[in-house]
């Protein structure tokens, strides 16, 4: 492997990893507070890609208006999801919540299938993202640089909210102890809604980036990124935002390396991530940055 190809692969890995990280952050936030694996999180990627497409094709919006609107729309869908599927089950056993999440995920997928149809749509990728530049003989698609940049910007924005604002403080408190936080007079429903808004908006950003990287959108496009992002979140220690970012990058790196070093293994890429998940759970169940799990019932 020459240095050129190696740097090429490295850039790909960073790009893919930051995409996983972007989606994993949302997973981790919801898990941190509700202790719930939001199965429908991946499907929010699909919602936002379609919203972005329709913004451009039906409402004739320029992409820089359509994309943020799609993200906000996804955030609102996230809040609605919480209201409809998770809020009635706050005091129920965790297994009910998880089943509801699986149902919500299937509902979103099949609703999209019924409303939009199963034929994949092409994503209208703006030209400025498709350009290719050459740096020191390495050919780089500009998109692979924009994705990590966007992830970093959103990450710092999120960290600011979580660590510097009052709402963020309440979120951190709720993730430590639900009941005590409620006793302290914090409106938990509002905090949970904000969490879903933030997490889903990030998923929306991830969905648009994903659709630009793989410009074909269909109702089931969110399943694989959703699972990958979950694995990334577990890898980094679920509930921990920085951990999710590290996990995302590691998973992206691992997958690209696997394909680059053993081209024959390319078809096992999805299986590879699950094997990693099983190994992590076996040897370090709380992930890289994880704290020991305190059982919150």
């Amino acid at each position, binding site marked *: 492997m020459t240095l050129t190809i190696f740097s090429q692969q490295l850039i790909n890995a960073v790009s893919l990893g930051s995409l996983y990280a972007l989606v994993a952050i949302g997973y981790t936030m919801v898990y941190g507070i509700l*202790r*719930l*694996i939001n199965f429908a999180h991946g499907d929010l990627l699909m919602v936002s890609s379609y919203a972005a497409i329709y913004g451009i094709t039906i409402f004739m919006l320029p992409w820089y208006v359509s994309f943020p609107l799609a993200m906000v729309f996804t955030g609102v869908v996230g809040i609605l999801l919480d209201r*409809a*599927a998770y809020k*009635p*089950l706050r005091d*129920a056993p*965790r*297994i*009910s919540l*998880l*089943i*509801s999440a*699986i*149902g*919500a995920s*299937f*509902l979103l997928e*099949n*609703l999209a*299938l*019924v409303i939009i149809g*199963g034929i994949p749509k092409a994503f209208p990728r703006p030209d400025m993202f498709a350009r290719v530049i050459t740096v020191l003989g390495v050919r780089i698609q500009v998109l692979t640089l924009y994705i990590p940049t966007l992830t970093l910007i959103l990450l710092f924005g999120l960290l600011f909210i979580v660590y510097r604002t009052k709402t963020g403080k309440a979120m951190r408190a709720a993730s430590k102890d639900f009941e005590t936080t409620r006793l302290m007079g914090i409106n938990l429903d509002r905090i949970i809604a904000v969490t879903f808004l933030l997490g889903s908006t990030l998923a929306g950003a991830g969905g648009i980036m994903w659709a630009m990287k793989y410009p074909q959108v269909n109702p089931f496009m969110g399943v694989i990124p959703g*699972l990958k992002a*979950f694995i990334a979140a*577990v890898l980094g220690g679920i509930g921990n935002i920085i951990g999710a970012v590290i996990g995302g990058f590691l998973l992206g790196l691992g997958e690209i390396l696997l394909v680059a070093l053993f081209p024959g293994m390319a*078809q*096992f890429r*999805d*299986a590879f991530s*699950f*094997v990693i*998940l*099983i190994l992590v*759970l*076996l040897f370090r*169940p709380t992930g890289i940055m994880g704290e020991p799990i305190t059982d919150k019932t």
Partner: protein
Amino acid sequence: MNHSRRNLVLNALSLAALFSVLYLFKRYGTEYQVRILNNMGIFITMAVSYNLVNGVCGLLHLGPNAFITIGAYTSALLTMSPAEKQMSFIIEPLIWPLSVVQAPFVVSLLAGGVTATLFAFLISFPVLRVRGDYLAIVTLGFGEVVRVMCNALQSVTNGPLGIKGLTPYTDLWWSWGVAVFSIIAITKLINSSYGRAMKAIREDEIAAKAMGIDPFKHLMLAFLVSAFFGGIAGGLLAHLITTISPTLFTFFLTFNLLIIIVVGGLGSTTGAVIGAVLFTWGGEALRVVESPMDFGLFVIPGIPGMRMVIFSVILMAVIIFARRGIMGRNEFSWDALFRRLRLSGR
């Protein structure tokens, strides 16, 4: 006549009634009706065995499709004759021992069950170390890994092409015979001391451990038994539809089984049976929404995929509004039935 003897007689009578109904359908029923009944029997086997892990032990296991796949492929590869195998494996020939062996249907079903159990044994060590959401994701992941392998290992599974032209061995006797057998076996297991230990682990694992119950041993037993019957059901399914491919056994199958046991009542074998019957029958009845409806004056076009929307809404509605499902954790029993009859008779 004492109670247990009365129950035994009643059980035998209802079994006889069931099989005479099946006989009548086999003799006079249309092909479509027989097909639905076959599906019902297979889904009962799958649901009852899935319920053993999910409902009785309280582990959210999302990978029964993996064991059904393994059973289906094993049993399909065993019943085909070497010549047929050579014909269907075009891209890559089947690997050696499998390409020459051929076994009768019964043996192939059992082999499917045993192979599924073997895989369940291997996977149980990492799976049963974790609980709750993690267990759900790991089992889901195992299901995905099996699906990816089915696509990739062309010299064993024929890849995405799948295996075609199986002999349709599965008939009403097979599907319902296995269903009845699995219900009896799993009920016996649940009512034994092992079953009570499983329920104790479901309620409070730490307390159960303090009482001297080994959680790993009991959960593993449930997991293996569940995989065994799942594998057999897979073999039956393969020989019912005669064509299997990796797309047949996606997470979608698990989702259906989950609906069945949640609607029936998590933890109730009776519930699983009722759920499976309702699901198979309701699934056919709901086809109405996917075909065009003609009201004379105007026509509503059919909406493909609408059935799945309705199923997801049902699952969420049940888990939110009627969390216990139809049966809750109760089981059907003759004693309870008679008590109720006498009460209403007064």
